[in-house]
């Protein structure tokens, strides 16, 4: 597949107090195929000094073919490789990357003593919450850019800093291998269906909830997890979590429950992946009828009733026999 991203221009800047900027202007090939690096865009990285206010710290421009856009067949990801040094005794410092003003990377840092807590959220990799023992963190991060963030022609990739409650960046370095990837692999897209078997349940019955999951995106999904959370009136039989690895097409799994009480009960299903623990859910209502044993006991009740009636007749006849002589004497 040809690489539709072409580096056409270079422009880098840095803001901040006393910041220094290092820009190398000799484009060099990216290490990753289909990922156009800052170097290929003509920006051999960005280096700043202390950044004490919000603003842009670097930018580059790239060009896409006419008609280009984010999805549904072709997707664009930003790969960020950076090293930051966080200052301040508290607050939050955020490093962002945006395409044409739409944020596609957001790395959050919080000073924690002599170290720093930092986190990422992405549609292409699991969320990270990490702690560095020092104030300097070097990281790589990737994410699908937002929809409507890229278009045919010249596009602008910008990097920014946002600072809250006293946190600062004492330095930011964006490495030249930071790049924009083009791929036909979509973000994870799942569709799920559920079916109850049998369709009629009585107290004491076991039933199966079949879950069918389809990968409707392009590219395998590393791990899909379906977790069932039934109401108290339904008892799981066996596992309540189903997992499937490397889902490419369709997959089905069964969850079994026993109905313990009549009435309407719900089974809640949570659907998650390795990238996002919860990408959706469903509630399946199960209406449970009274126990079949209530129906099968009816001969016992009938027998008791018949027995009581027979006993009544016996007692009545006995009573009459006792009364008859006494009546004769009275007459």
């Amino acid at each position, binding site marked *: 597949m040809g690489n539709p991203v072409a580096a056409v221009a270079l422009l880098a800047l840095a803001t901040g107090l006393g910041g220094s900027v290092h820009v190398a202007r000799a484009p060099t090939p990216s290490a990753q195929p289909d990922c156009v690096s800052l170097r290929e865009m003509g920006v051999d990285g960005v280096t700043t000094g202390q950044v004490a206010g919000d603003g842009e710290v670097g930018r580059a421009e790239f060009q896409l073919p006419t008609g280009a856009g984010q999805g549904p067949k072709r997707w664009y990801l930003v790969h960020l490789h950076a090293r930051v040094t966080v200052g301040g005794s508290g607050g939050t410092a955020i490093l962002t990357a945006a395409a044409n003003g739409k944020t596609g990377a957001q790395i959050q840092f919080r000073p924690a003593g002599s170290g720093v807590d930092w986190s990422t959220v992405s549609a292409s990799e699991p969320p990270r919450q990490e702690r560095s023992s020092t104030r300097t963190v070097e990281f790589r991060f990737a994410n699908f850019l937002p929809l409507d963030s890229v278009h045919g022609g010249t596009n602008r990739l910008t990097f920014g800093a946002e600072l809250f409650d006293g946190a600062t960046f004492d330095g930011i370095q964006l490495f030249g291998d930071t790049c924009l990837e083009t791929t036909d692999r979509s973000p994870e897209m799942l569709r799920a269906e559920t079916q109850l078997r049998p369709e009629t349940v009585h107290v004491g019955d076991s039933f199966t909830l079949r879950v069918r999951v389809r990968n409707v995106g392009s590219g395998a999904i590393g791990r899909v997890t379906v977790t069932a959370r039934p109401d108290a009136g339904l008892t799981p039989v066996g596992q309540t979590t189903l997992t499937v690895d490397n889902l490419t097409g369709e997959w089905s799994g069964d969850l079994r429950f026993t109905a313990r009480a009549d009435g309407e009960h719900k089974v809640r299903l949570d659907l998650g992946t390795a990238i996002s623990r919860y990408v959706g859910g469903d509630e399946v209502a199960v209406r449970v009828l009274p126990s079949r044993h209530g*129906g099968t006991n009816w001969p016992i009740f009938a027998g008791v009733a018949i027995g009581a009636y027979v006993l009544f007749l016996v007692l009545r006849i006995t009573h009459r026999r006792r009364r008859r002589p006494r009546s004769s004497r009275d007459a």
Partner: protein
Amino acid sequence: MSRFGGSVRAWSHRWLLIVGMAFVAVLAAATPAQADRVINGTFRYLTLSGGGDAFYNYDFNSQSISSTNVDWAVNLVFVGNATVPKVKAVVSSIMPYAGSIKYAFVAGGWDQDRGLKQTQGGSCPGGTSYHFRVYAPSSTDRMYNVNYGYFVVGTAHNDYKEGCSGSYAGDNEQAEAYVRGGFDARGYLVVANAFWLNNVETTYDGGHHWNNNGYATRIWI
């Protein structure tokens, strides 16, 4: 016929009738009913797109997902480049107080928030005090969706005359409009009724005035 004997026969007939009726009743009650289809939920669909994080359309009184444990409907979605602290920072000057802790199930985990509100409860006679809470996973303070970027969700309501005579909680639409106006006034792009979240409420009782239209405001951060 003696009076006593006549009474015995009358009681015998009554008992016969009673026992017979009981017998019939027992038989009728014990006969299994013919049931129609009794399970709902066959083939329910959920379609997910964009690889985004999911959230419930209500927050909860405790960490228990149940329709009987919900607190307020989600009626605010902050998108683009949002985080929980960033959202709160925008309107903290007009909503400087905190409320009680509530919970939301977001991206597969629980978050909790006291939110921001206009006045503290108990300052009688009191009046309108709009209160909103903002949620995202506590470990990251934001979620991501390819359609809308980094986002967080919120609930808004009015704690009217809280702690005073004539108090109630609710007015969700008015509270949503107040928060929307607060961001609009500070230059943020806001769109009323942008997301259908299927959480309409129009119930009134002595202590609550639920009036959510099921749509959430979208605010670009």
